[in-house]
């Protein structure tokens, strides 16, 4: 680049066309604008990630018993055991991944990786 072609760093840019047709700003201003927008994006994302993690919803399907309220669990945490539901003529056997009670959910060891529904298991007593 020769001496005549080189522009000073505060040169006025502008008239790129389209929606930006009426824009006039220096290179320094354009850089500031871009960096301000990036800073806003990073700040907003960081705030949302830090304070907005409501976690995954764990719903409980009583499978014929009394209702159990759903709860919010963070990724990698175990599900806090709710008060067990009751059902006339049945005994509660625990929570299961499927509604016919073949895949048990271990409240102490199994961790949450996504929103899920747990189904109550029942054993006939009378």
């Amino acid at each position, binding site marked *: *680049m020769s001496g005549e072609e*080189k522009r000073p*760093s505060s040169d006025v*840019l*502008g*008239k*790129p*066309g*389209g*929606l*930006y047709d009426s*824009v006039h*700003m220096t*290179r320094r201003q*354009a*850089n500031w*604008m*871009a*960096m*301000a*927008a*990036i800073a*806003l*994006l*990073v700040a*907003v*994302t960081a705030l*949302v*990630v830090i304070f*907005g*993690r*409501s*976690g*995954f919803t764990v719903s409980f399907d009583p499978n014929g018993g009394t209702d159990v309220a759903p709860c919010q669990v*963070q*990724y*990698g945490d175990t599900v806090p055991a709710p008060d067990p539901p009751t059902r006339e003529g049945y005994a509660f056997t625990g929570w299961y991944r499927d509604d016919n009670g073949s895949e048990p959910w271990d409240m102490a060891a199994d961790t949450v*990786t*996504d929103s899920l529904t747990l189904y109550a298991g029942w054993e006939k007593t009378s």
Partner: protein
Amino acid sequence: MTGYFKRKAEEYRTLDQADKRRFWVDGLLNNALYILMAAFIIFTAVVNKNFLSASSIANVVILAAASLPMALGIGGCIVLTGTDLSGGRVFGLTAAMAAAFLQNRMATKLIFERLPSTTGPWIFAVLVLVMLVGAIIGLVNGFFVAKFSLHPFIVTLATQLITYGVILMFFQINGNGGGPISNVAQEFKNVVSGPVIKIASKNVSIPWYVIYAFLLVIVMWFVWNKTTFGKNMFAVGSNAEAARVSGVNVFKTTVMVHTLAGALYGFAGFVEAARLGSITASTGLNNECDAIAACVIGGVSFVGGTGNIGGIVVGVFVLRIIFVALNMLGINPNLQFIIKGAIILAACSLDMRKYLVRK
């Protein structure tokens, strides 16, 4: 490839101090969104191991396929230095129409009682119908933009409101009272959102509309790059006056771009009806913002006359990856709008800076 980098390195060495700094600042700012996204992906993958699993990647592809048609449509409007704010509502209207026309005939609550049974020809007829409805709204947009040189922001804002009114009335048909339109016929679901590839061991199932979106990308690539219409579109976008002087029919091109966009929203709505199976009056709200953001991220600039189909596909994927990642982090879905807004602001600022500096 090595020759290219060697030449670039030679060029770089000849620059003086100020230009070297510019080189780095330009490079960093022009790619800032991709750099930030890479950091965000790594962060998410560290926090949630499932993010890079096969089912999560398939989920990104599926969501991207669902939002591609709208972005491909709106891309043309942005190439013309315009935009289309009516997209989301057209999408909602056509989704509601497709759902209503293709309800399970056996259902107890029907929007339209006397319709043919939901066989192949009728499903195809509904597809043509909803694309036609979208195209007509697009035609209105295009006509007012091209004929009276009204700014697309104004025209499409007006049609957005008009379309929303039509949507609200549509949900009142046959005593529906604004409730959701559900009970979509299984035959319709089978051909649109039914699985085409299934890997049970990995919990992955790819629906048909991913294939349709892929075909649509090929068709749109052909339209943009290989047809006179596509070339005229770029000519009008970069300089309408110059295009007019060199014999391009600016009116016809503008109207056609908006009409094509409308037809693509219709297609997207058709897919959405099968995908969700239940459409409400708020379906499609703000969808055009996602599509616009995807286009701008993908390099379809508001400066006009620039952009390509590949960029739009990349932009759609970038946006979907971010939203799947937010979901995987367990972020409240309501907060995603805040990030969406910040992404649009950042993408447009970076885009404007890029074209200001290039001059």
